[in-house]
């Protein structure tokens, strides 16, 4: 509850809060500004703001001359694909743990989370070799698999947290009404959990989109998503600052927008319901 405060104090705190917020946001803002400057203007010293020459050229060029659209499309396929595949495995699992809990349910959840603590780099070579063996290197399906596995524990945890809030009686009612297990999940649980499933999906897409280890290690060109593309984007002597900024802006904008929509769920999701 907000308490009544004096107008003077309100002005002061507003000023302070906005200053802090703008400082935090400034790097993103500066990048976006740079993306609209000419290359010369981008590296001008002292930095140009009002007097800069503005242009859309960078976006046009990045989109047309680099393979940007392909990287972008790879990112979409990998993020969405791994999320959907993960949901197919996670929903039944979370259903079972939320509604038919056993003595070991909590241990199982902990174990799943602990798989996320394993340093990815420790298993890099085996995964690389396995990918080589099965022809998965630099394929989108390969990355979909790896990112799905990487985020599966979070997916299960989040869904579990949301499912726990659905009263078990409703599922029992469905059972009494003659619904098979499949119908119970399809007609009753899933529609009731849609908001939870949606925010879980959103968060998982964000995590997958921003992943920057496996995407760098396991792809070269064909299946490389934006994170790998940006990581390898070299800017020798700042010759391509404006274009780099434009490419970066295009890489983060979709996720920034998705993220802004899901910031409330982010807290619940990533803290597994421990902070509400």
């Amino acid at each position, binding site marked *: 509850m907000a308490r009544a405060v004096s107008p003077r104090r309100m002005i002061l705190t507003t000023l302070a809060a906005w200053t802090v917020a703008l400082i935090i946001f400034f790097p993103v803002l500066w990048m976006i500004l740079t993306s609209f400057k000419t290359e010369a203007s981008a590296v001008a010293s002292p930095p140009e703001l009002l007097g800069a020459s503005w242009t859309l050229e960078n976006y046009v060029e990045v989109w047309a001359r680099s393979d940007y659209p392909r990287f972008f499309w790879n990112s979409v396929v990998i993020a969405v694909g791994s999320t959907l595949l993960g949901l197919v495995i996670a929903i039944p699992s979370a259903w079972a743990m939320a509604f038919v809990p056993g003595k070991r349910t909590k241990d199982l959840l902990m174990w799943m989370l602990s798989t996320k603590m394993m340093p990815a780099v420790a298993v890099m070579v085996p995964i690389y070799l396995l990918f080589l063996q099965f022809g998965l290197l630099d394929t989108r399906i390969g990355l979909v698999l790896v990112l799905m596995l990487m985020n599966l524990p979070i997916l299960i945890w989040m869904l579990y947290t949301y499912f726990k809030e659905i009263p078990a009686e409703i599922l*029992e009612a*469905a*059972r009494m009404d003659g619904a098979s297990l499949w119908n119970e999940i399809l007609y009753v649980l899933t529609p009731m959990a849609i908001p939870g499933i949606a925010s879980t999906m959103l968060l998982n897409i964000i995590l997958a989109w921003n992943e920057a280890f496996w995407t760098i290690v396991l792809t070269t060109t064909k299946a490389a998503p934006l994170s790998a593309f940006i990581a390898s984007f070299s800017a020798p002597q700042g010759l391509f600052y404006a274009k780099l900024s434009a490419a970066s802006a295009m890489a983060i904008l979709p996720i920034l927008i998705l993220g802004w929509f899901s910031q409330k769920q982010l807290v619940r999701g990533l803290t597994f319901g421990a902070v509400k």
Partner: protein
Amino acid sequence: MGKIQLTKVRKSFGEVDVIPGIDLTIEDGEFVVFVGPSGCGKSTLLRLIAGLEDTTSGVIDIDGKDATNLPPAKRGLAMVFQSYALYPHMTVRKNIAFPLKMAGMDQAEQDKRVARAASVLNLSSYLDRRPGQLSGGQRQRVAIGRAIVREPAAFLFDEPLSNLDAALRVGMRQEISELHQTLKTTMVYVTHDQVEAMTMADKIVVLNAGRIEQVGSPLTLYHEPRNKFVAGFIGSPRMNFIDGAEAAKHGAHTIGIRPEHITVGDGPWEGVVGLSEHLGSDSFIKVEVPGLGTLNVRGPGELGVHHGDRVKLAPAGKIHRFDAEGLAI
């Protein structure tokens, strides 16, 4: 048809025997109420009949067929839950039609049955609303509607009125009784409220710690309780129990007298009025009687006594006698 027979039904959760072993027959068309204090196993027993829990051992027959290992859907029973358990994302119409849809019934028949149930339950004008837009009583009726469309062998009610406020509860109680008159289907009803049990039941099953204390009609339980537990549980205010010398006079370890079976005016017992409550139609007083303890007395109309008055009391009705084990003599 809806005869339900339990034979040596036992349920344990791990080491704990929630129900150590129950034999019970529920006749077709009967309105049976399971009543008892919380934790007595009445809800568990209902869930065993529903098939939402496994029996640890024993047999449950429904209509003469062994249903012990059948899944809930195959038992032909319908259940009304305490929280109503309506599907919040479906309209009232879809809620009521859900069991029919699951049974694969054709759309025309579904519509016909939903319309019939809705008119019986006065829900016709709410069919396109969602449960969230309904009052507690209306939700309750939707839950009942969802149960009756299937024309089940028996209805199971799990404390269905406990979420309603007092006034609504009386109304719904009568509606459920009327529904039973109309449908003449077996109903098994769980409650902790003995007033519900007394007013609705053909047969009451009093449960305590997973055991059946007594089975009988409401008035049998009132007049001839088999033991102290039943005597104390049925009837409001609670029966007075007196031990010691006064009980020995009647050749018992303990005697019990219902508050309404004590008259104020003249008599062998004398004491001081503590609490007195005057409802107009009835008066309840607590009298501190030396040697006997506090006696609850219920009198018709105005008793005209107040806190601090000295009154004389006399037993004027049946005196229940119990032995040292609490069994009626």
